[in-house]
Structure formats: structure tokens, C-alpha cells
């Protein structure tokens, strides 16, 4: 029951990735990688996670800032959300990400919270956060998906024992932009498309990303395919700041002469990972951007939804947000 009091740990601040790998090897399961700390410190303060060594990544060179590449931009994983909001290049080409980043938490949190941390943060399922031994925590029960579970914040899609949702605001935007994640480890570097980077409980019930032990998300690459496209981002939360999405939508539409040539529509808060609305996308490609098309997309956005007892409201929310995304992008 003890909360708001961290256990002791050793703090390491490596200046090079090689040093970070070494520390990970040294401490094994006792190591914890920390970026801005906005998720990590919560875990530590609740004593639900008690690492022996915290490897704080902010001193590693080359992991911050936005760089132009041959095909778009590369954003260092430790770039703060506030820096992304203000970056001229991102603003010019990827307004969708700017909009998503500006909806994260509060200005104070965005000043220290990083894009990498926002993408890798753990789910906010309150049962899991309370330190209960649920499936995700290695146990054999889901408290939220039980007859009396208080599950209004949980998933509509992709439940597999666990019904938690992805809390990230920037993740749907990056999936919509078809971004890729640069993942580094002692073995080298691999690049994972955003859509595959986020994983559901069917793939790994204890992790929300494809990151394996010893791997570090070092950068995010956004291709030019949807550069300066028509974008739409909206987050529905109870409060206008410092709140997680009940449902969010991020959409990137390529529109030529009023006709939607391509579209990527992604919802947050409805599945353990950002959910591509593929049926909706398919329904609107080649059609005029108008209310009727938007309605067609909406009708195909909540198919297959399996609401829990308290979260059926997410169905009209998804439909309404997809409508607005297609109509107003």
C-alpha cells in the first residue's frame, strides 16, 4: 500500500549507447531504461517497479533533435514533446504529429517528456497500475474484464486475456504517418514500422512494443509519403489537459482535386495498440471528401468492436471521430 516513495536505486547516465548496453548487460532484469521519466517515476513512486539500476538516457549523444533525411525526417527518441511542437520542419510537414504531441498531458510534462517515452509508455489500466498481479503483470487474471470490473477506459478491439489500451497520443499519429522506429541494441540496428512496433496482448501480454530486453528505441523516421498531407487529430478526454484519451483519432489523407487518393486513419484508446481503421480507409479511397464519404468511413470503423460493460460509449466516439477526420482533414 505504500505509495509516493521510491525505493533506492543506482542512477546511471551513460553518454554513449555502447555504455548503455554494457549497463543493461550488467544489471539484467534489474535495469530500467528511462527517458523523460514521466512514466518511470510513477512506477517507482508506487513501488510497483523496483529496479536496481536506472539507466537514464538523456546524456547519450545523437538521440535528440529533428534531422531532415533523404525521405522525410528522423526524430531522436529523446526529443521532448515540447521541442517537437515547436520544430519548424515538423510543423511544416507533419502537422499531425505536432497536433498529437501538443495534446499530451500538460505543458510541464511535455517539457520533460520525450517522444520515445510517450511511445514506449506502459498502459494506464488502473488495476495493472495498482500493482495487482494481473495477466500483464505475470499473473493469471484480468481484473478489468470481470463481471464487476470498472472498465470504462478499456478496449473495444483486440482483447486477448488483457483488455488494456494504448495510452499514447503520438503513437496513432506516427502510425498514420507510416513512421518507422529505429531500434538499437548491442547486435546492431533494426527498423520496425510503427504499425508493427506496437503489439497487442496476443503477441506479448507483458509488453506494449516490439522492444526486446537490451533494445533501445533511438529514433523515429517519418517518410515523405504523407508529408504535408491533409491531417486530422482529435483527442477526447474528460479534461482539456493532463488526461489520457478515452478515444483519439489521427488521420492522414492524400487528397487531389477533392478526391481522397490515399488515407491512413488510426484510433487511440480503443485497443492495446493504435488501431488502423483499414475498413474505413478502404471505404474512402478514390471517393470525394465530403460528409457522405465520411459517413461511409464511420460505418466501417467500429465493426468487430466488442464493448465491455462500461465502455460502449467508445463506439459512437470512434464513429464520430472518424467521421470528423475524413470530413475535416
Amino acid at each position, binding site marked *: *500500500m*505504500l*505509495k*509516493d*516513495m*521510491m*525505493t*533506492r536505486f543506482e542512477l546511471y547516465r551513460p553518454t554513449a549507447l555502447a555504455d548503455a548496453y554494457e549497463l543493461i548487460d550488467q544489471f539484467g532484469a534489474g535495469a530500467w531504461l528511462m527517458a523523460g521519466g514521466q512514466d518511470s517515476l510513477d512506477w517507482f513512486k*508506487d*513501488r510497483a517497479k523496483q529496479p536496481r539500476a536506472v539507466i537514464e538516457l538523456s546524456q547519450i549523444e545523437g538521440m535528440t533533435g529533428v534531422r531532415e533525411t533523404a525521405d522525410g525526417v528522423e526524430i531522436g527518441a529523446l526529443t521532448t514533446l515540447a521541442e517537437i511542437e515547436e520544430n519548424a520542419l515538423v510543423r511544416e510537414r507533419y502537422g499531425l504529429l505536432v497536433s498529437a504531441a501538443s495534446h499530451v498531458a*500538460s505543458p510541464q510534462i511535455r517539457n520533460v517528456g520525450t517522444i520515445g517515452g510517450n511511445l514506449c509508455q506502459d498502459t494506464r489500466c*488502473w*488495476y495493472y497500475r*495498482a500493482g*495487482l498481479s494481473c495477466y500483464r503483470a505475470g499473473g493469471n487474471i484480468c*481484473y478489468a474484464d*470481470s*463481471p*464487476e*470490473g*470498472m472498465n*470504462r*477506459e478499456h478496449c473495444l478491439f483486440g482483447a486477448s486475456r488483457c483488455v488494456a489500451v494504448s495510452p499514447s497520443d503520438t503513437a496513432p499519429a506516427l502510425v498514420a504517418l507510416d513512421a518507422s522506429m529505429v531500434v538499437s541494441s548491442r547486435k546492431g540496428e533494426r527498423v520496425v514500422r510503427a504499425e508493427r512496433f506496437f503489439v497487442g496482448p496476443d503477441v506479448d501480454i507483458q509488453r506494449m512494443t516490439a522492444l526486446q530486453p537490451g533494445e533501445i528505441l533511438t529514433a523515429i523516421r517519418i517518410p515523405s509519403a504523407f508529408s504535408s498531407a491533409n491531417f486530422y487529430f*482529435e483527442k*477526447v478526454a*474528460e*479534461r*482539456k*489537459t*493532463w*488526461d489520457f484519451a*478515452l478515444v483519439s483519432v489521427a488521420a492522414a489523407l492524400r487528397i487531389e482535386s477533392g478526391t481522397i487518393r490515399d488515407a491512413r486513419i488510426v484510433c487511440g484508446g480503443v485497443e492495446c495498440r493504435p488501431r488502423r481503421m483499414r475498413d474505413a480507409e478502404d471505404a474512402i479511397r478514390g471517393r470525394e471528401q465530403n460528409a457522405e464519404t465520411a459517413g461511409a468511413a464511420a460505418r466501417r470503423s467500429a465493426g468487430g468492436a466488442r464493448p465491455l*460493460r*462500461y465502455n*460502449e*460509449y467508445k463506439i*459512437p*466516439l470512434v464513429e*464520430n*471521430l472518424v*467521421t*470528423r477526420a475524413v470530413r475535416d482533414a
Partner: protein
Amino acid sequence: MAFKLIGENFIPPDLHGKVTGKAKYAEDFRVEGMVFCKMLGSPMPNARVVRIDASEALAMEGVVGILTADDVPEMPSPQQPILTNRPTYVGEPILAIAAVDETTAADALDRIRLELEPLPFVIDPLDSLKPSGPNARDDGNVANMGIPLQELKWGSTDFSELADGRLPMDGQPVLDWTYGDIERGFADAAIVYDETFVTASNAHHSMEPRSTLSYWENGKCFVYGSTQSQTFIMPMLAGYLGIDVADIVYISEYCGGGFGSKGVAYPSMAVPAHMSKKIGRPVMLRITRAEEYFIGSNRGGFQGRIKIGFGKGGKVSAVDLYVVQSCGPNGGFPDFDSAGHAVSLCYQPAAMRYRAVPVLTNTPPGGAQRGPGQNQIAMVMEPLLDRAARDLGVDRLAIRRLNSPKNDSLFGGEQHGVTSAYQDEGLGKGAERFGWADKLRRSGERNGSKVIGIGVGQAYHEAGAAGFDGLVRIAPDGRLHIHTGIGNLGTYSYAATSRVVAEVLQCDWERCVIERGDSRKHLPWNFGQFGSNTSFTMSRSNHAAAVDARNKLLEIAADMLGGSPEDFELGDETVFAKAEPRRNVSFAAAARRAVELGGRYDGHELPEDLNPITRASAVALAGTGLVGVAKDNYPISATPVALAAGFIMIELDLETGVYEILEYNGAIDCGTVIHPLSLANQVKGGAVMGIGLGGLERLVYDPQNGLPANVGLYQSKPPSYLDVPSHMGWDAVGIADPQNPVGVRGMGEPVMGCAASALICAISDALGGHYFNRTPITCEMIVNAASGRPQPHRPLQVFTF
């Protein structure tokens, strides 16, 4: 009566400290040899401690002691224990460990081997009222202030009504009063509604957690605490400590918010003192944000049912109201009692029956929160007035004005009177500033998926008490010292009411000294700073002491200069002859003369009717100047009331359930306005809390496991800066109350309830009059309503998202 100071803005003396950071709150203090302690809370909602093995913890380097329930005085059931072996809610403190630093203390708690036997628990009060339902405590399931602990089961009640969404009305209550002819009231009604409702419990979110430092020195127990009240908490604290009140030194100069939860002493305040006594070192107990959600108390939630009849013109003809309150395991606060009075007063039904039962639950202890009972029931009543107005074709403002209390109004089962009441005027003034008629024309105005909603809401709270003491002193240097024991909740009313003394004695405010915040400053016995009472209560007792000082000044001047006291007048810190102002005595000279005269002039002889705490303070001051001291014996024949109205315009997005508050105006009837700026801050700050109460805040519990879902600020969702309008208007009726010497009544609480009820009325308005029978009205409830879906909650279900 023309005032120089009353009604003028000023800078309260504690403001600079707050703005510059120099103010010291309880946890800012440090003393030599101080150690820290941390408490271990129960992980179970109802359990028995079977065994505590602290051997490993106590063997740790840096650990200096342990305190368990066996080391502290036992409190009579169902009161909150200081520490317990029989925890009745998650987070209830079982023991405390002291160590040289907090990290060590926390690590030591991890090494305590605690064996608990889980017991059946109850989250929903109605479960406990069922014949075979569980009790939150071994010794009963119903208790509250004035309601003895007892077991109450609704034996023959028809619980099948629950399945149809109705609260059974035939269950045995513990409170039951009636006035007027109910049957006739309903028979005469043009329209009758029968609605079952739920209002949520919610937390206080005091920004300063209730930390305490304590140590013993020369036989006295020093306590640095965080409380709204100063002297009023001391007898209760003495009870927790098991010592005489005279042996406590209590320091609480600043309080970072309490909202009712720090109005009286609370059990955790006693932990450092008991630990300190045991280990012989000063002990600091810093309460964390999470702990605030366990031990910081919360507003009681209501499950209720109301039958209300309206005449064809909109007059309320009859009310039959039943309220079941969730109280936590210790009885909590009688919100249920206040709710019935509020309905009776605010809507003046020709006949009313009120029944209620406060039920113990294994949720955090209930406590007073700003408008306890009145503000919940405002959110029940105001939408029903709107509904009646719509169904009867009456204006929504007009129906409120029609039913509003007047000077001769009576209320409650005993049909109390009011000192004065001008809600009709308040509604009128507020409506004018808001532009009600113009705004109403915008109701339902569409802009894409967004729709305009207009709301007006009202709330009430009692607004004062009488019979407390005032104590002032004019020092031989002529300075006026105003001793105030009310406390400093943060509203600055301790300062505004101190100005009554300066007003009576015609003193330059800049030369007045307010003595407060530390019992060593010899403070009088005053009421607690809660219940919207300070302005009324303290202005009376301060006035009484000031008049005593004035009389003594006049007598001394007559003695020194010749003539009779009636020949003299006060001004510019002198006592002067009315006929010849140049014949005068300075306050300084008069104070010196008072010391020479002794007796009642300098505090050596005191009135018989003073409280012992005031007497001890006056005795300590005796001989140091001219002492004015008196009990407030001014007549009082009725209840002073605070009445507030809120006017709101929102733009609600039907597709997302999200709304923007476009405009808010509050109007208050609190008699004479004594400090406009702090009144404005109260109206606006109350509205911020009301916006949370109406639309955001609720305690959520998993009913299977008895676990709290929202422990923390971001989960509990008090409104953020962006959720409230950046500009809010306010107005006050400003008609003096006849039973207060400066005409003021209190006002702190209804300014919250009127905003909460205005908001939910505006939400309903935007949805074409959709009636929600549950508060807060959250965005998913709005989405469900707008998309024609049923709400997921079971009827009468409590502690839900």
C-alpha cells in the same frame, strides 16, 4: 452605517509570504534531532490484523521506532482510530515506523510482516441495508454525528423496486421529519415527478497534504499542523493525545487548502506526537498525495428518491425525499441532514417529508466537503426545477424566483426562521449581469455538432454561528493587537473579520497587528473555520471585544480628562471630547492608564462567561495593555443563511460529449460585502470546484475487491485551468443582515453548489432537456445520451466512473 474599512479591498498580511514562498507550512519546519515517520496502510477494505512481525524492520540501520494501535489511545467506535488492528478501508493506517530519513522508514515498512484476515466488506450502502447484507464494522452499519452506532436492516422492504431503478421508500430511516400536508400537496399538484438519483463521493485534493511535526518540550506537546481552524481543533487534538488542552502548543499559520477535510483535528495529527513521546525525538510525518486519498476524507455520496409536486404556476407544492448516504466506516459527516434542510429552505415546498439513513461503507472516511449535503442535493433539485419549468411552460429563472426563500421563510422539520434572505434579489441581479433573457434565446443554438446550453443553479448553506469570544489588546505603544483563533483556511476571512475591530475602534489598519496561527500568541476560543461561518461568527465576536475595548477607552478618557464616557468619541487612535476634539487621550496613553488601573481594564478581571481557552489567553495578556474581551452575547433568533446563484453558458459537442464553458456569473446573498476581492475569489474558486463536482469528480471503487480506482490527481480529475472559463463574473446583493453588527453573513459553500447545478442544468439544456439522474455528468454519459444509448450503470449503483 458608513464604514471606512468594511467593504474595501486590502492586502491580507499573510499574502506576501504565500506569493514569495516565505510562508512556512507544517512540513517546512525542521527541529534538531528530528526523524521522519511513515505509516503502513491496510491493503484490504475490511480485515483483522492477526500478527505484526516488525523484527526485521526494527533491526535495520536508521530505524528508530515503531508505533502500533497498542501504543495510542483507543477511540470509541465508530470514530476513526489513530492506528488500528481492525482496518475498515483500504489505506487505513495500521502502524508507523520512524527512521532517520523517509526512504529508510519506507524500506522498513516493506519489511514488516503483516498477517491480515480478510473480512466481508461493503461498498454499496444498499447492500448493507439488505437483511443479510454485510456490515462495514463488527458493531454496526449505521452511524453519523448525532446518530448512535447501530445495526439497521430493511427487513420488510421491497428491494425488487431496485431492479426497476427505484429506491424503496419504505425502509426504516434514522431521520424522519414532516411538515405540512403531503398528501394534499401532491393532490393539488399540476405535475408530479418521481425520480431516483445518485450523487457521487469525491475527494478534497487539498494541495497541502496533512503533514504534522510534533515534539515534547518542558511538559508541553508542540504540534505543527495543517488545519483550517486554530483553537477549535485543540480540545479534539488533546483527546487524541490524551493530555490537557493547556499542554498543547499548536502552530498552524498557513493551511494549503482543506475544503472541510481539515476543519477539525484528525487522527494522523496525533501519530508524530505519540511516536515522539515513545522515541524521545521530534517526529515529522509527511503525508503523501496518495495518502491524502485514503485518510483525507471525502464527500458522502447519495442514493435517493424524490417525489416532487409543482402547482401549475410552478410553485413547489410537496416534496417527499429519501436519502441514503455512503459514509465510510466511521460515520462521517451528516450531509444527509443538511440536504433535507436545503430543499426545504431553497424551494419552500408547502409540505415536505424527509427521511434519511447514513450507512457505513468500507470506503475512505466520509468528511465535510464544501457544502456537504446542500451541494449534492442542489444537483438533484435544480434539474427538476428546469424540467417542471419546461413541462409547465414557465421560465426557468422565474420558477426559481417564485420558490425562493424570503425574510419570513421557515424551513426544516422544526420550521426554523432565517435572519434574512434575498435570493430573489440575487437571482435578479445575477440574471441581469448574465443577460438571462438574451442568453436563453441562444439555448439550443447549433453550430455543426455543437449546441448551446444555458443553465442557472442555486445552492445554500448555513452561514454563521454565535457565542464565541473576542480578544483584543491596545499595547502601551498604541498599537492594536487583534487576537483571532479562527484559523487560516486560505480565504483571508480571518483578516477581513479582524477589520471589524479596527472599524469599531477607528484605527489605522496599517497599525493593527493580527495575532494568529500559534497558540502561544494567546488566542481566544473561536469556532472552526468551516461551514461558511467565519464572516458572521467572527465579526460578531470581534465586534463584541472591540466594543468592550471602546467602552474602556471612553471610561479611561473620562477618568483622565473629566466628564462622562458619553462625552467622548474615538478617532485617529485617540479618544477625544466630542465638544472639544483637542481634549484627547492617545490610545497609547489610554493603554498605559489601563495598566495602571488594572482590574478589568488590563485583563486582570475577566467576564465570567468566557471559554477557558480565552480566559487562559486573557490571563496571559493581563497587565500588558488595555484588554478588550467578551463573549458574543448578541441576540440571535434565527439561522443566518448564504444563498448563491450561478448562471452558465456552455457549448456542448454532441459527438464527443466535450463542452466548453463560455461564460459563468455568480451572484451571492451574503449580507454586507466586507471584502470584495476575497468574495470575488470565493465565487470564482467555488465555481471551479463546482465545475469539478458537476462534471468530473467521483471516487471509483471496484466492487469485487473493494479497491480504489483513482488515487491521484490525474485520476481524480479536479478541473484544470483549461476546463474552467478564464473570466468569470460575480455580483452580490449587499443588503445588510439585521443579526450581525456589520450586516455580513458567510458565503463559502453555496458558491460551489450553484455552479455545479448550473453546469448540469446547462448540459441537460444542450441535450434538449435530457434528465440525468446521476452526478457528475461525465462525457461518456453525454455521448451515451446524445447517441441514444442506455447508461451502463445499474440503477442506484455507486462508486462508478
